[in-house]
């Protein structure tokens, strides 16, 4: 009796095995490997779901929190427009006509958000959580190049696309570029090239510059880019001073400027740091000083409306560069400003603009590729030419995943017409003039093939 129970037939083995496979859910994997296309096997493949989840990772606290809050508003607006809500924003003006307001590839767009705290480790944790727990198929966000580079590296490891929002360091698409990372925002090198002619015209070619620089990748590359651009004009540069991010009180770094012999202060700061350092520099009377027989001047190479608002009167007359400005008159900018202003009661910042555009570009790339499979989406973004998103004709260069478009030179407005009229576009550097050889920054993009999620 007992012996007969021990007999296991071939049929039983097959039946039990198949039941086990089905019960443990391994069947889809086995089938996908053997009989389905390879592009089903990637991280957070949403093919079996009715929605697709995007992960938005912004600094909601820390030195760049204002930019992060505006990025979040833009991401939410982009999702609304992708799902057919609102007035569609830039979708009608976008040169690509693949987006129909029915989500991405027919799937409703959902999103999750995270706070990077403007810290690389917190940002990576947040992005990892969105990928592993929430099933995000794309991560976007930034506002700190240190954060963007850290998250971009993680996304490359996990095989999830990273559509960077506000990150301005040359390294993001230079030595630290990644196959899975794309940047629509301009960079420090382009800022230097764009602003130099304006500075030469306004302040002359015989100047001594003093740099106060945020002590991390973005600050270093902006300092280097501005140094190279201004020294090419004939300016001299004193030993730059590095300041910690989030220092708050910059007074001990500003007092040495008074007796340094410099007649220009270049503030390589962003967000609240820039607001604090510029306000404090003006409080110290730097702009009222005469040095070397010239009026002392302050330059902020990267500036935004949010910072101009924070700095108030201190921003008047200050030159800087911007990726975009809400007062641009092209159809795309007007449409976006109208949508954003109507929803939030304020115009969008450049951080909001790049976040919105990156979300649309990702959605469009999936539509054109006809799949969420990252290598195909990447290929559809590489060397892609588009227009109608607020910056004129733009190219996503395939060799470094950097966007090339016009760069704006702006100045703090002396007599604002309304509380939002803070910056004036005084010059535009053409796309051609800010295009450079990708080899100057080095770096390797890495492979197309996606990794596993974990």
């Amino acid at each position, binding site marked *: 009796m007992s012996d007969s129970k021990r007999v296991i037939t071939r049929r039983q083995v097959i039946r039990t095995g198949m039941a086990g496979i089905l019960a443990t859910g391994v069947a889809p994997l086995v089938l996908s490997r053997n009989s389905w296309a390879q592009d089903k096997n990637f991280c957070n493949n949403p093919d079996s779901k009715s929605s697709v989840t995007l992960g938005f990772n912004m600094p*909601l*606290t820390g030195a760049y*929190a*204002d930019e992060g809050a505006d990025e979040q508003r833009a991401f939410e607006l982009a999702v609304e427009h992708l799902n057919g809500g609102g007035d569609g924003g830039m979708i009608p003006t976008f040169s690509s006509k693949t987006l129909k307001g029915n989500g991405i590839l027919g799937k409703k767009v959902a999103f999750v958000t995270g706070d990077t705290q403007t810290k690389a480790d917190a940002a990576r944790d947040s992005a990892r959580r969105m990928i592993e727990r929430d099933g995000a198929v794309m991560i976007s966000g930034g506002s700190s190049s240190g954060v963007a580079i850290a998250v971009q590296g993680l996304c490359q490891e996990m095989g999830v696309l990273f559509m960077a929002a506000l990150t301005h360091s040359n390294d993001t698409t230079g030595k630290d570029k990644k196959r899975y990372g794309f940047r629509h925002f301009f960079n420090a090198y382009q800022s230097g090239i764009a602003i130099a002619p304006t500075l030469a015209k306004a302040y002359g070619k015989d100047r001594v510059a003093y740099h106060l620089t945020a002590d991390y990748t973005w600050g270093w590359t902006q300092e280097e880019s501005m140094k190279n651009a201004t020294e090419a004009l004939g300016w001299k540069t*004193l*030993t730059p*001073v*590095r300041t*910690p991010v989030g220092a*708050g*009180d910059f*007074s*001990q*770094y500003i*007092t*040495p400027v*008074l*007796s*340094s012999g410099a007649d220009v202060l270049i503030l390589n700061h962003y967000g*609240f740091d820039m*607001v*604090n350092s510029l*306000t*404090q520099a003006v*409080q*110290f*009377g730097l702009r*009222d*000083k*005469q040095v070397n027989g010239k009026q002392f001047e302050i330059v902020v190479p990267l500036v935004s409306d949010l910072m101009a608002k*924070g700095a108030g009167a201190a921003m008047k007359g200050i030159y800087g560069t911007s990726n975009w400005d*809400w*007062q641009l008159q092209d159809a795309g900018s007007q449409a976006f*400003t*109208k949508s*954003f*202003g*109507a929803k939030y*009661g304020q*115009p969008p910042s450049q951080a909001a603009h790049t976040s919105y555009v990156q979300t649309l570009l990702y959605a469009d790339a999936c539509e054109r590729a006809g799949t969420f499979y990252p290598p195909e989406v990447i290929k559809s973004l590489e060397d892609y030419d588009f227009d109608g998103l607020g910056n004129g004709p733009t190219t996503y260069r395939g060799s470094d995943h950097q966007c090339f478009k016009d760069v704006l030179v702006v100045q703090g407005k002396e007599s604002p017409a*309304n509380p*939002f*009229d803070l910056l004036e576009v005084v010059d535009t550097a053409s796309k051609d003039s800010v295009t450079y050889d990708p080899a100057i920054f080095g770096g390797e993009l890495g492979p197309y093939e996606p990794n596993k999620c974990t």
Partner: protein
Amino acid sequence: MDAILAQLLNGLDKGGAYALIALGLTLVFGTLGVVNFAHGALFMLGAFCAVTIRLLLSMETVTIDPEKLSPWGTPLEVRTPLAQQWFGDWGSVMLDYSVPLAILLAVPIMLILGIVMERGLIKHFYKRPHAEQILVTFGLAIVLQEIVKAFFGPNPIPQPVPTDFRGAADVGAWFGLQAGAVTYPVWRLVYLLFSVGILAAVFAFLRFTTFGMVVRAGMADRETVGILGINIDRRFTIMFGLAAVVAGVAGVMYTPLLPPNYHLGMDFLVLSFVVVVVGGMGSLPGAVAAGFLLGIVQSFASMTEIKSLLPGIDQIIIYLIAVIILLVRPRGLLGRSGVMET
């Protein structure tokens, strides 16, 4: 000479803030024997008294002007501050002077808060080890900052310098230097004078009043003062409230120099604790001297010449000094023998 004067002024102005917080910290340690890690949060709460006053004065009525459009095409919202509606030109002046006005709010609120904090929580930990006192007060600091974060959000909220105190004074000319060689923001000079004034007032209170004399006696020998029939505990509670007021008004006046956020207190607490350790736990003159000394040292360490020789020295100099003091003279510069030496 110009550079040295500018850095010296900067050090004194920073030192003023350190000394004010450290004074309260060491006062509480000297009277109650408690290491109060919530003291930085009191500085932050003072700063948010200024924020609150400004928010109240800035409350506005919103009307829609159907004839005008916003830049994005919706009807224009016209905002009018209530202070201006109610008080006319005085409303504008009150808004402009919201920071000094906030002192009127901060003094009673901080006094009450200090007394409630001491009676409600800290008194239960007098006989516990210092480690437990640190843990409970640190926890209290976190609770207070999270409450502020919940009400005011996580981001810094700038406060204006009153119009009459904006701009920079030609300090170099006062010292016979070339005109315009050393300029210094007027509000920072105001803050320095304010710090010195508050410090002098606290010392005068302790030195020249009967209440202060009893408190000093209690700090030196608590038991004997108690045997004389004096309720020293009640006086120490009031001193805790006074320490909270000092931290609070220091926070109020600091807001135009550094926009406050919920974390402001923690940033200053660490520095102030180092100041107290360097000055000597429980020593009031030590806290003041160390506050100004470390402010000046930190300022000079930020000079370009020094930073180019020792990169990053500005970030660690204060802690480096603390380490040296703890190794060479554990009681601190002016600390009493036997206090925190073991």
